[in-house]
């Protein structure tokens, strides 16, 4: 597991107040939105704000958003590819 994924787990548990979850039992390949975690559209928008604030990556379309937030792994991938200054 890379650093970005580990970091995202901690941040998402914190901002969405997923108190039942710990980084250890947060599977990055599990369904993130609409799955058993009860994460919905408002949570997605909260994560959009976090991604922009902490990583400088802007996600401003719902259609794209749905794909990006399908799992934590896909979110990490998207951030990695779109971080300003990173090779793409």
């Amino acid at each position, binding site marked *: 597991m890379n650093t970005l994924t580990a970091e995202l787990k901690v941040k998402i548990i914190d901002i969405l*107040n997923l108190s039942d979850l710990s980084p250890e039992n947060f599977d990055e390949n599990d369904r993130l939105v609409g799955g058993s975690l009860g994460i919905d*559209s*408002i949570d997605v928008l*909260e994560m959009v*704000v976090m991604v922009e604030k902490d990583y400088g990556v802007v996600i401003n379309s719902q259609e794209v958003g749905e794909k990006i937030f399908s799992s934590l792994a896909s979110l990490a991938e998207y951030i990695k590819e779109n971080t300003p200054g990173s090779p793409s």
Partner: protein
Amino acid sequence: MGKRVYIADLGIISPLGEGVAATEEALRGNCSAIAPLDLFPLLHGEPLPTGQIRGLAEQSDLPRTHRLAHNAALQAMASGNTPPDVLDAIILGNTTGGILTTETLLRNKASNKALYRYHGLHSVAEYLAQELGCHGMALTVSTACSSGAVAIAMALAMLRSGKAKTVLAGGVDSLCRLTYFGFHSLQLVDRQGCRPLDADRHGMAVAEGAAMLLLTTEKPDRPLAELLGAGLSCDAYHPAAPHPEGRGALMAMQAALADAGLTPTDIGYISLHGTGTPENDLAEAKAVNTLFAAPPPLSSIKGATGHSLAASGAIEAVVSALAVAKDFLPANTGCQNPDPALGLIPLNRPTTQPTRAVLSNSFGFGGNNGCLVIAKPDNFSPPPPGRTKTGLAIHGFSCLTGAGDTAATMALLAQGLPVAGTPDLAAISANLPPNLVRRLKRLPRLTLSLALSAHQDSGFEAKPGAVFMGTGWGALSETHDFLARLTDSGEQFPSPTDFVGSVHNGPAGQTAILFGAAGANITASGGDYSFEQALLAADLMLEEGPNTALVLGADEGHSVLSPLLDPSIAPEALLADGGGAFCLGRKTENAHCLVRVPFYQSGTAEGSITALIDALGRVQTLNSKYALLLVGIPAAVQKEGEEQLTRFLEQSGIQAPIIRYREFTGEFASASAVAAVMAASFLTSGKVPGPLVSGNDLALAANNPAILVLGLGRYLSAMEFSRP
């Protein structure tokens, strides 16, 4: 036969202009008034399109909301058909009060409480009452974007009940940073203006405005229209998104038609909620297509006006009154290519067409829906006779105070000890599902905990179908955190979660979701009389029959905002909060006790104490009727309140023991909800604990059963609790 309710006069100010004539002219021109915001400076980026009112005179220290409401109210009262002294009540829909002013004060770290005196939602209705000389009820409805329509629906119920003959009802909101950045954080704002029902629509335009309807059961010489019916519902689905199939929207439309005694084919025009967000328009279209085999002409005017939140339902009621008065149907401004997925073809140009009845839709956050039916006067049958009996039967109750839950609170009170303080958030949340409350801060958790306990206490298996909530200050944590993060992040990263949670009706919406309560869902905000307003709303809106409702009053103590906003909370004082809840209905069998609200009027009017006593019954009977007085005198009006109490006791001859309940509960706006629970608890146990009445236990004998909960100060309110 019931009473017909006429629309005697109208007042409106919106981005389209000031006054009915200017509004009509603008709508006939089919142009959008949506333009980039310049009301307040922005730190970053291009201003978003908004529906801003231009040229409103900037004078005095009154917040913009108050000035907009006053403007519309003066128009509605200007014709002279109805002199102001016969105005029995004002019912105003509002979501953000004087927050535009508050935002600036908070940024400047202003600490002078007096500067915040117009923050509260109730301050707008009370300001109107003062300016118009209305001494009756001044009620504030806050159900997000349906507030204006719900206020008008409550006015209709009040007029039909005979409690009032003339009511000024409407809605108001001004643009502010909270809503401007809040809706943007939800990605609900269309950067190209607002295009309701268009295939390429991308959202709403946040707007401002005010509209007022002068409603009366005394038929004016030339009534503009008749308010024929209203229907309320709650999606009970999600705090911000509409039910995808438009379930609540359909129920509210059906309820409005049934209330009006009409069938879908009677409707000649639908004024859609039509915000321009993909989800709203789709859900609304599904509901319309379910109810109407062949929908009549329809349009949303929000492409022209933007979405003025609490004002929108009232603005669209004015436009609906114009539609039947002038046979004029406005276009769906901004829609170029109707979305084929909606299956609706909105009016693409202003149209003149004979129109007897209009359905006007308003839907809001919290799934709070309100629909109105407005018709040509006397064209349809009058309503059936109204219910004459008032009062509600209490089957379960609960409270939260600094002492803890109901049992802990009553145990301390039984020893004559205070219960003031702030209950622990973890303890409050203990009985709440973690996944439901993970996003919720203090007020919604207090509310849900109260609601669950009251329902549990009722022993009912059936869940309550309606929710009536009173809160003086709303969700202060969410409001504070939203504005703080907005400022701290240089206006870049406000929290969408906090915005959704900041609306006053958030807690009642969450309660509806928890219970699946799909009936009426009304949040009232009346400062220190908020719980009384919720109880009044419940008595007006709860139908006969077996259905039960939750009536709640709750406020949170917030270390930064409470001392600034609540005039009764001293800067260094220890905070107190909590509230009370009732599970109640119309059926009196097996009820703990009964409650009614015989009086609610301005406390400053001449003769108000006499009027209060008259409302309670014959003066010779009062001393034997009431075994106990629970009296609420907010600290900010200590002197006036004590004077009122002295006069009340002198004139009424009541010699019952008095408990000044705020000495026990501490100072918070909905302390009266705790007092109400005390009354219900004493009646249930049959005694008032001796230490509270400085003596022996006071037995509540069967022949002397009533407890009066008096609210004193700016308003005088009376809640009467008695045995069934």
